[in-house]
């Protein structure tokens, strides 16, 4: 077990003090977002204001914010600071080919680094460690978020970025990286590649890993820990809220501590939008209490998880959440990348005659997610020439790559096959076993 260390006093506040802090911060953020037209109109419609919030339950009088709302007010319709006060912009895949953007002020970047530092420290990172970030650095929040969290802890960061597994292993060996930051499936790829190179993955200098960016299971944790001889920690976040840092595991590894001094998190029945009983699965709905540039109220994450508030052995008083066990929308996470079926549909629309008959298949035959698009061949797509048919496949694959960033296998299917497999409405067949 990891030595128990806690970065900030706020992680251990008595629940009553935490609630008072949350309410004070909720009122402040409601005051600030009232300048955003979307919220100003919603507040007027509901007759709410910062002053009318008397308790934390009053959060339920506030409007929800959805991904669709972000898209409708693209690119940056939710800013509460002038554009020239922004320090950075990140993005995440939208339901169409365009990303939705999130903006950070300098203070937001400080906050974000600190939130990541908290769970990194909880999961064993110490100033004397070297941590290798094998997440993509880019619009995606994973790479930069963890990078600055590691620096905040005072540890050494190796910004290896994603890909080139052989080089990742060389870097670990040459620089003695004790901590690995990536998606859980990439950790298995590293172990597999090491074995191919004749290196026993357990002899790598790694001691800890912090995983996020995609759903995984306890079975995968056991496999990764055995193959790499490490302790693996789970963390959670999403770019619309801040990125990684919304919650993370402590040494007890019994749920992820929600950073409640900065986020007010509800767990709601996705249909009735009423709170579920404590400990029951529901949709996480998150209000960013302290973000400066783009705080969102009641952001509907579409992630299904459980939340409970029993005290933890580590001494933190914050609520804990389970792994994400599902989605209330049809978003897929493939190799750590968010993909919506509507994006695939958009890609197919660019190729004449391919819609509306297609099926998206996701599988994880060993450790790597595989995306297959099965497209029905309509008479106008049919050619007697093999080269034309192959070009059609390649073109579909190219369009899917352009829109989603994911390389997909494209299979041409006879019309009746997809009907038989999936019926008309079902577009996605996810064969991965990811919810335990």
């Amino acid at each position, binding site marked *: 077990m990891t030595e128990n260390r806690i970065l900030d006093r706020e992680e251990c506040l008595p629940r009553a003090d935490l609630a008072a802090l949350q309410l004070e911060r909720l009122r402040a953020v409601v005051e600030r977002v009232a300048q955003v037209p979307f919220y100003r109109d919603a507040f007027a419609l509901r007759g709410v204001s910062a002053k009318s919030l008397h308790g934390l339950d009053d959060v339920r009088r506030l409007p929800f914010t959805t991904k669709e709302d972000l898209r409708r007010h693209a690119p940056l319709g939710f800013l509460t600071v002038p554009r020239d006060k922004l320090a950075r912009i990140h993005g995440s895949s939208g339901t169409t080919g365009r990303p939705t953007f999130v903006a950070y002020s300098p203070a937001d970047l400080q906050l974000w680094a600190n939130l990541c530092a908290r769970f990194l420290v909880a999961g064993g990172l110490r100033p004397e460690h070297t941590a290798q970030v094998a997440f993509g650095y880019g619009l995606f929040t994973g790479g930069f978020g963890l990078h600055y969290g590691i620096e905040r802890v005072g540890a050494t960061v190796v910004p290896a970025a994603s890909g080139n597994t052989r080089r990742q292993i060389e870097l670990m060996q040459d620089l003695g990286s004790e901590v690995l930051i990536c998606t859980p499936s990439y950790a298995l790829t590293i172990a597999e590649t090491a074995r191919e190179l004749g290196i026993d993955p357990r002899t790598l200098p790694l001691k800890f890993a912090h995983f996020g960016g995609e759903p995984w299971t306890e079975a995968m944790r056991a496999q990764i820990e055995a193959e790499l001889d490490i302790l693996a920690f789970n963390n959670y976040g999403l770019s619309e809220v801040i990125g990684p840092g919304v919650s993370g595991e402590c040494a007890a590894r019994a749920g992820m501590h929600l950073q409640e001094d900065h986020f007010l998190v509800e767990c709601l029945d996705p249909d009735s939008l009423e709170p579920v009983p404590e400990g029951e699965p529901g949709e996480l709905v998150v209000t960013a209490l302290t973000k400066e540039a783009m705080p969102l109220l009641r952001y509907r994450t579409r992630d299904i998880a459980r939340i409970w508030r029993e005290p933890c052995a580590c001494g933190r008083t914050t609520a804990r959440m389970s792994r994400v066990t599902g989605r209330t929308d049809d978003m897929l996470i493939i190799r750590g990348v968010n993909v919506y079926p509507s994006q695939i549909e958009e890609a197919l629309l660019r190729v004449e005659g391919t819609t509306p008959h297609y099926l998206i298949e996701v599988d994880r035959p060993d450790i790597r997610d595989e995306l297959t698009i099965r497209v029905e*061949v309509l008479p106008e797509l*049919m050619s007697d*020439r*093999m080269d034309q*048919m192959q070009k059609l496949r390649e073109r579909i694959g190219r369009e899917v790559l352009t829109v989603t960033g994911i390389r997909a296998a494209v299979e041409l299917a006879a019309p009746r096959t997809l009907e038989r497999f999936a019926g008309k409405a079902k577009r996605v067949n996810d064969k991965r076993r990811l919810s335990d």
Partner: protein
Amino acid sequence: MKLPQLSVFLENRPGSLAEPLRLLADARINLVSISLADTEQFGILRLVLKDWQAAKNVLERDGWVVNVSDVVAVDVPDEPGGLVGMLDLLAAEGVNIEYMYAFCLRRNGRAVLIFRFEDPDAAIATLARVKLAVVADNELF
């Protein structure tokens, strides 16, 4: 002259070749030529037959995707070098062949080949000019 050729999309799975052929057999439609081009994932079944319109209807009624394209039947001497000589002629004339396959028919010491040219009409004109024998449909069916 040009012959209509049916191309049928096949998935690569057991039985997928037999199914359209059984449909045609049940409809008592006779094939003159059959060729299969395939990849690891799908195949294209190419058929030349007299009642191509009836065959197309039968297949499409059952949900098969059918494409009609023009091919040209050419006969060459059924002897070593017979085909090569012809291909040399076509290459010299700049005629592009998309694909070709052999016909099941041999007659008078000659073999019949099916060609899918990029431009069938231009190819037929060229064949006539270089005195290569294009086989007419009434000779085949």
